[in-house]
């Protein structure tokens, strides 16, 4: 295969605090190819967010290397979109301006991106809410706005840190379907961090399974399931994959057997 889009090699992170140092990420290596959908699953505190932030250039790494498109990550990366666990909307901007924040900060042409922002809002079921303020929206709607904001500038890379964590089960399913839909259409490279094993298997091409802190890669599974994947029509193999990941967690003591 050709050179991967993202290459993470022997990545390590030690957080230095006043009292002690926390070994958060230990020798993590994996590649992400162009247009691939990767999910990371792992127990709480195993360093998933840390990996995402290091990849985005928001947190420096202690050793190892990260390259995106052949270039080493040494500062905040801007050629990407990030979706956080919390929607992080600006209270003082209405829905459309929150999406356009991305355009405003980057100094892009408003007129050119406005139709795209509207189109994205429509695709995520937010048509008619353009001029509402964030406090007038539900949690699920807010998270959809943040998805639109992460996509409006058409970045080649999308990073998502437990984007559904704060949502109810129904909204979670709805938005994960939205994400799959958007991904199949645009074929961006996606890194999704999640606690949910079924969610990872449902959405990703490859699932990186991590150990408890200090986080290491325990296994990388290729998910070979046809798309679009639908929750009401899950093949038997789906359960094989989720079962396999559960086994890994049980073996490392993350999941109790009963």
């Amino acid at each position, binding site marked *: 295969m050709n050179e991967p889009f993202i290459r993470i090699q022997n990545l390590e992170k030690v957080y230095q605090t006043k009292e002690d140092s926390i070994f958060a990420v230990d020798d993590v290596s994996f590649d992400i190819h162009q247009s691939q959908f990767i999910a990371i699953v792992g127990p709480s505190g195993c360093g998933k967010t840390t990996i995402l*932030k290091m990849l*985005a250039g*928001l947190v420096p790494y202690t050793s190892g290397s990260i390259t995106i498109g052949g270039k080493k990550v040494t500062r*905040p*990366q*801007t050629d*990407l*979109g*990030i979706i*956080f666990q*919390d929607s*992080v909307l*600006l*209270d*003082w901007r209405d829905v459309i301006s929150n999406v356009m*924040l*991305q355009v*405003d*900060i*980057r100094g892009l042409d408003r007129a050119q991106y406005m139709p795209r922002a509207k189109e994205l809002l429509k695709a995520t079921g937010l048509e008619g809410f353009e001029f509402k*303020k964030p*406090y007038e929206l539900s949690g699920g709607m807010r998270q959809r706005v943040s998805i639109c904001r992460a996509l409006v500038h058409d970045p080649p890379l999308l990073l998502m840190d437990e984007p559904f964590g704060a949502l109810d089960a129904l909204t979670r399913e709805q938005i994960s379907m939205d994400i799959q839909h958007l991904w199949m259409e645009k074929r961006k490279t996606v890194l999704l961090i999640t606690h949910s094993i079924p969610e990872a298997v449902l959405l990703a091409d490859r699932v990186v399974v991590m150990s408890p802190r200090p986080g290491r890669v325990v296994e990388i599974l290729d998910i070979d399931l046809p798309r679009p994947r639908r929750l009401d029509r899950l093949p038997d193999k789906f359960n094989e994959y989720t079962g396999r990941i559960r086994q890994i967690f049980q073996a490392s003591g993350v999941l109790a057997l009963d």
Partner: protein
Amino acid sequence: MEQAERHAQARKEKQESDSREEWRLRALPFIGILGFLIIWEIAVMLFKLPAYLLPRPTEIVRTLIEEWDSLQSNGMVTAYEMILGYVLAVVIGVPLAIGITASPSFDRFITPILLFFQTVPKIAIAPLFLVWFGVGTMPKVLVAFLISFFPIVIDTAVGLRSVSLEMIDLARSMGATRMQIFTQFRLPTSLPYLFSGLKVAATLAVVGAVVGEFVGADRGLGYILLVANSNLQTALLFATIVVLTALGLLLFYAIEILEHFMIPWHVSRRAGEQEHGTM
């Protein structure tokens, strides 16, 4: 069709009862104040309290009208000192807070000094200002400034620091410059805090001006208070207090109106929360 009409009718009725309810809620405080004044009036008559101890509300109103010219001209003096001190506090306090949050070394340098001056009772400094600056406007303005300065600096700094880490991460991932992070993220986030500081300071500024006048003045409402006090003109004392309170409220509501225009998103959210609270 018919159903739609019925809906419209129901909605209209709902709106009407809502607005009636709203008027009732608005009227309540005034009814409360009126009741209080009536009881006061009756109590003074009933117990035959002498006017120098507790004048009747009607007596106070009469004095207010009789002495209006003097109250007005002296009120202007106090208002001038109060507003000047307040504006000075805003003009110096806000940039100082920005400096403190922008530079850790400036923070380390200035914050201990600030804390020290905040702890000093401002009222105790007033006589010193009299020694330094005489009986003119200056010492009053300075006391008003000092007393309203700290809530502004502290609340603005707290507000500027209240931006979440994720929001800063978001900004950096968009390639935001330092300036953009400040104007687009930090400053708007801080505005609700800034305004709550401004409102606290507004009520303090009038206190500052009056205290300044107490220490040494030949005009202003604080001076009138002292004169009325020594002459046992208790009704005039009360009338002056009424004017002083009005001054403070005027400044307070001016800030609140400004707040409505500057941060409507925050004000309406707060209103929404209050609505929930009363339900």
